[in-house]
């Protein structure tokens, strides 16, 4: 693969040896070893692969590399770590807001985008903001509580 694409991921410039039409998801997972964004459908329907692109939560499975060039890509790994967790990550643990947890990172990225534009959302606003993220295990209500808890903590 002779092509190289430069992306800014979690604050660092990274070189990716892949064609420009490669879905961002595979570059993140396989070239940069950032496994937090997960494949769910490949069509942007389920939200498991969501990352922030200039602050907007987008599906990385149907975002080609060329569309991410020159933009800030933030993945769940860039949102927070065990040493310095994001309020959402703390809140998800506090509320035990997962069963299998496969959808969790994509949902946290959608919630992070929501809280950035709407720091004090109502429960209905949280639900609406997460409607394009699917959860099959039925953790929805715990997830909503976790997002509201994080919002409260961030604005305290």
């Amino acid at each position, binding site marked *: 693969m002779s092509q190289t694409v430069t992306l800014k991921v979690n604050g660092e410039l990274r070189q990716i040896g892949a064609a420009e039409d490669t879905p961002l998801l595979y570059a993140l997972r396989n070239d940069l070893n950032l496994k937090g964004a997960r494949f769910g459908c490949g069509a942007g329907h389920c939200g498991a692969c969501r990352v922030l692109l200039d602050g907007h939560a987008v599906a990385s499975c149907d975002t080609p590399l060329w569309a991410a060039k020159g933009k800030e890509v933030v993945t769940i790994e860039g949102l927070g770590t065990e040493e310095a967790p994001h309020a959402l990550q703390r809140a998800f643990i506090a509320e035990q807001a997962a069963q299998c947890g496969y959808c969790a990172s994509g949902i946290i990225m959608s919630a992070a985008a929501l809280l950035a534009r709407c720091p004090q959302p109502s429960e209905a606003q949280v639900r609406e903001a997460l409607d394009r993220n699917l959860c099959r*295990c039925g953790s*929805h209500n715990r997830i909503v509580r976790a997002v509201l808890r994080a919002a409260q903590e961030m604005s305290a």
Partner: protein
Amino acid sequence: MNLDPRTLDPAATASAAPAPAATAPAPTPATLEKPAPAVVIPAPAANAPAVAKLPGSLNNNRRLNLWLRVLPEGIIEVMPGKVEIGQGIVTALGQIVAEEFDVDLSRVRMVRARTGLSPDEAVTSGSLSIQDCGLALRHASAEARALLIAEAARQWNAEAATLTVADGVISDTSGRKLAYWQLDSAALFDREATGTVRLKTVDAHRLIGTTVARIDIPDKVYGHPRFVHDMVLPGMRYGRVLRPAAPGARLASLDDAAARALPGVTIVRDGSFVGVVAGREEVALKALALLRKGAAWSEGPGMPPTEGLYDWMRTQPLDSKVIEDKHEPLPGAVAQEVSLRYTKPYLAHASIGACCAIAQWNEAADKKQLLLWTHSQGIYNLRADLGLTFRMPLADIIVEHVEGAGCYGHNGADDAALDAVLLARAAGGAPVQVVWSREEELAWSPASPAMDIQVKAGLDAEGNVLSWQYQVWSNGHGIRPGRAKTPTLLAARYLDEPFEQFIAVNAPLASGGGSDRNAIAQYTFPEHVVTNHRLLTMPLRVSAMRALGGYANIFAIESAMDEFALMAGADPVEYRLRHLKDPRAIAVLKTAAARARWSEWDSEEHEEGAGHGIAWVKYKNSAAYCAVVAEVVMAEVVKVKRLVIAVDVGLTINPDGVINQIEGGAIQSASWTLKEALGYDAQGVTSVDWEHYPILNFSEVPQVEIEIINRPEERSVGAGECASGPTAAAIANAVAHALGVRVRDLPLTPERIMAAM
């Protein structure tokens, strides 16, 4: 509690030897508040039978060292044969060990299941993990603890009964101390369990019955590699499979030139099984798209009819069995006969993550070895089918469980595993990872069978049930691997030397059954006849999904009871109680009703179009009790506002774990009940993406309130499946209450409701 440090470490898996664990941090010692008294193992009675029945999975995996190991650095390794499938089981199992073994939770490390190393506990299914594995670990831990204490007593020449244990450190009255890890536990545990050591009494529990945070959740919210999808092995390549144009179709011709021209692509073909292996994942996907264009397929043998499915099911060759045939004298005369028919469509597992596996063939000069990483629910069962497929000794196949996305039954995990193994044959010893597409996940995983149910009842003058005739038509609910003479895995049907499609069967009713699960109503009907008709044709591949037949059977039974209550002019709760004697059933019904303010409904204000309904189950007629009250509002669609649930799982191990499972089961069932039906046409399943298989979203999910009735004196049973059936019936009953119209065909879509009006 610690995670398995070998997580995603292939080197540890490749050898059959136990993994080194020297890197584990020393846990912080914690002191017990109440040191438990020591226990001595009684000598077996002289007249004891040669092989005593042991509790739970200990019976088939009798050696203590299969389950537990004490490491020199003060870590207790636990090797359950049951696996994490998103239900939080490894946390609850660790809790059980820490309790009975008398160590702090931080000392417990859960080891991932691997063939040749872990006990063979068959399949993680049927809400049996707490019941079978948990019970085995409770007894194994209690016995292991007693052995260590007896050894300390021997060394000190002391009475074992005078010794105490705090966090794995044994003390005597003079202040001498010996830690478990200072004793030769390997020798002590190298023996069969006796099952004779008494478990702790409930009042001595310090961990069982408390909420312990799930050990796997931090990894998941920080985006750490955790799933088999996230594993990376040295030199790993990416595989994808080209599914046929229709189920059962054969590959007539294949032009693979365009796909082959892509960089690093290998085409794999074995009969009608076709796939690609590539060095990059997106290249494998491109190659697959090109292969699809170049493939021509024969017609498949056909799908079930799209119109008149349920009538067609009754015309198929059937294996019919009467499973209940009770004829007590009728206490009165039948005043009215009623016949009702209920149906449930094919459903998809529809996990958010697609199935995935990694396989690697190690070919040395003298033998072949197959390594496999999979989220299968049954590593030994999968290994058995791989042995059949490749005609190779089981000892040469090592299968290790690595977590996958949520698993709700027999999904495509085992099928994806065979895909990976077949593709890895062409990878020259490199590991190959296969990730299914969304279409494969929805359309090629085994589906949950369609079911057709007929209730015929004779009612007395007060409307009470005197006679109950119940019939079920369905495919069997099981094609799990490892149980048949031929492999049941998807790709096996398409090989150059193909294996025939296995027709789904039902497990024996005593083991939970299949389509007949919960078909025998738990009411006191004087005359009660139940017949199960299993289809002997299977054009759409089906197997077990959460609650199996218990979902549709409880939907039917509890809908019918509701209809009879309304016909009798009785309150639905009171009417059920008339037909019930089981105190635990009565308790969940009354608790759910009280919590939902059931009897205050008429005196309280409600939105326009509101209604409520109730239903309950004794899951599998042998396990958890669960009652659900649903509150709905009828608008353009059925909006479920609230589910109020009472559950009795016997002795509760981890209350939040139980609540999480019940809540998840109820919300998933609400989704099945309101929205879901697997679509298909003559060419195959048409529900190939989320637009064609919608599930409940965040805005549609109801509030859920759960009350646990803890029964420390009763055995612990699973919580994962019991909410599915009563949630469906409670919603249907609430719709009937709101509209005065009964919908007997799932799902309860606006079209179905309009048709019923």
